[in-house]
């Protein structure tokens, strides 16, 4: 078979150029800049900078606050990823079984997808308002005096809830389409082979959903680490002092509030390396156990 190709060498490069330019301008250049400035101590008022080697990194290593935030970020990521995947899978399995009014359910479940993270955070702010937020009222009726923005645990709970709520629809769409791509006859064969729907799900449906699940796992970890910035920002706005924050938010706080460009750059480089390592690890270890049809 003859492969379709271009007659000249320059045309494909020319066509790729806009995309490459965008990636270079908005990703590689800032990333390179961050690596560079992580070795410098920047004057807060922009009057110059001095080379400090690995000082920014060693300072972070000995910083107990940074360690605490890293721990919280880990917990936050695990909780958000787990609950948004589990809830979405549950909803998708249920929606897949619905025959009557299926379209309406699906549309309603997908709507939240269209909400931007800061808006989601703002809705969370309203829902958990200490004086009249319906969810705070609900917590109060169980004897839980919910104090968003004041109590560390309460704020963290709200952050996790809002982040999960925001992410469930995306996962739901992928899981649902994953479920629907499993051949009907394979499920019917399982119906004849196994009486228990629990066994059928774990032996047949779940392994066949694994490629979708693996993809979503990476997407969700990335989401919890980075894209929740908007949610965190709105929920802790103004008073990051005693409130929980994630590593990404700490980068912003130190860099743009504390004017410590060098330290903040070092943090983002650490994050970059972390995510890179995590992704490589996932592909090496998890993907090997997945069956792609």
């Amino acid at each position, binding site marked *: 078979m003859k492969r379709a190709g271009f007659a000249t060498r320059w045309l494909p490069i020319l066509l790729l150029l806009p995309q490459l330019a965008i990636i270079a301008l908005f990703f590689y250049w800032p990333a390179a800049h961050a690596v560079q400035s992580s070795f410098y101590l920047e004057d807060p008022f922009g009057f110059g900078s001095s080379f400090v080697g690995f000082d920014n990194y060693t300072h972070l290593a000995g910083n107990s606050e940074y360690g605490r935030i890293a721990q919280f970020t880990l917990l936050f990521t695990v909780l958000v990823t787990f609950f948004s995947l589990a809830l979405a899978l549950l909803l998708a399995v249920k929606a897949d079984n619905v025959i009557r009014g299926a379209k309406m359910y699906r549309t309603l479940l997908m709507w939240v997808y269209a909400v931007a993270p800061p808006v989601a955070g703002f809705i969370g702010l309203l829902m958990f308002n200490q004086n009249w937020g319906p969810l705070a009222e609900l917590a109060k009726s169980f004897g839980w005096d919910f104090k968003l923005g004041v109590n560390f645990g309460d704020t963290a709970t709200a952050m996790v809830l809002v982040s999960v709520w925001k992410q469930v629809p995306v996962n739901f769409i992928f899981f649902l389409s994953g479920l629907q791509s499993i051949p009907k006859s394979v499920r019917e064969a399982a*119906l004849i*082979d*196994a*009486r228990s729907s629990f066994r059928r799900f774990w032996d047949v449906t779940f392994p*066949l959903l694994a490629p979708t699940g693996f993809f979503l796992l990476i997407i969700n970890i990335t989401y919890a680490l980075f894209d929740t910035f908007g949610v965190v920002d709105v929920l802790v706005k103004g008073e990051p002092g005693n409130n929980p924050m994630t590593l990404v938010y700490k980068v912003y706080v130190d860099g743009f509030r504390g004017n410590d460009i060098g330290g903040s750059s070092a943090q983002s480089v650490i994050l970059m390396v972390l995510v890179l390592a995590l992704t490589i690890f996932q592909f090496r270890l998890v993907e090997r156990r997945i*069956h792609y049809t």
Partner: protein
Amino acid sequence: MAQVSLQNIRKVYPNGYEAVVPTSFDIKDGEFVVLVGPSGCGKSTLLRMVAGLEDISEGVLSIGDRNVNHVDPADRDIAMVFQNYALYPHMTVRKNIGYGLKNRKIAASEIEAKVQVAAKMLNLTDFLERKPSQLSGGQRQRVAMGRAVVRDPALFLFDEPLSNLDAKLRHQMRIEIKALQRRLGVTSIYVTHDQVEAMTMADRIIVLNAGRIEQIGTPAEIYHRPASTFVASFMGAPPMNLLKADCSEKRVILKGNVAVTANAADGPIVLGIRPEDIEVGEACDIPFTVDIVEELGAHRLLHGQLDGQDLTIHVGKDVAVSAGPIRISINPDAVVLFDAETGLAL
């Protein structure tokens, strides 16, 4: 092993479409029954109701002496072979075959022994560690068979299991399935749209059309004594010739000649005759013009028109015929007469 009984089984979908009109038949223990009909005739729906994959709208279904209307598919003691095999893509052949047993809480050593027996029977021993994607179509078909055989069920259900195979393999698997069923003696229901499969494999054929039974009978009965013009034209390749004729004074007149005597009322009638029941020779009484000769090696098919109606004649390879005028005669014993209005055999 068990007999199967369907009593007034009916299927109506929520949108009001009646896929199967109330249908009754019994299948004897160890019998191989083929449901045949064009697509949309309800044969698959019927099979899926027996399997428990579709709800039964009305009627009583029993397998053995047990009413299974509301029994889970897994508890009906059946095994099903699907058109696209429906193997579990993430499991090896061994696990595919053993999965149903595993769920019945059978000891692992016993499962392994049964899988080995089934694999040996189906020439799959060398492929037990492979995944379905690493197998050919015929091998996948065998794995699907193995999955059914290993369960030692009361009833085998086949849903067009050969339609995804090429012609040569289909022929081979047809014989293998039939031989296997004979050997195991398991009652079987086999759905197909291919009348050759129906003829060659069945102990009894059930011909379905538009959700109702046209005829139940042995392959020979179905072929030689079709109950309706539908059965006559559906079964057989080429199908039975159906000629519009007139009946007067108990005689059927075809192109001015008396073809056959009939115990029927005067008026229009349909005369059915199989292509091989028409004789060709100088002494024959009906003049006929051959338009096209189809050379098939073992025999020839002659196509032409009689009284403005298409007629196909099957002659042996030793009968030399070329396009042009010949003389034919119709074997009166092989003629089947149908009511011109209802299409039912008289």
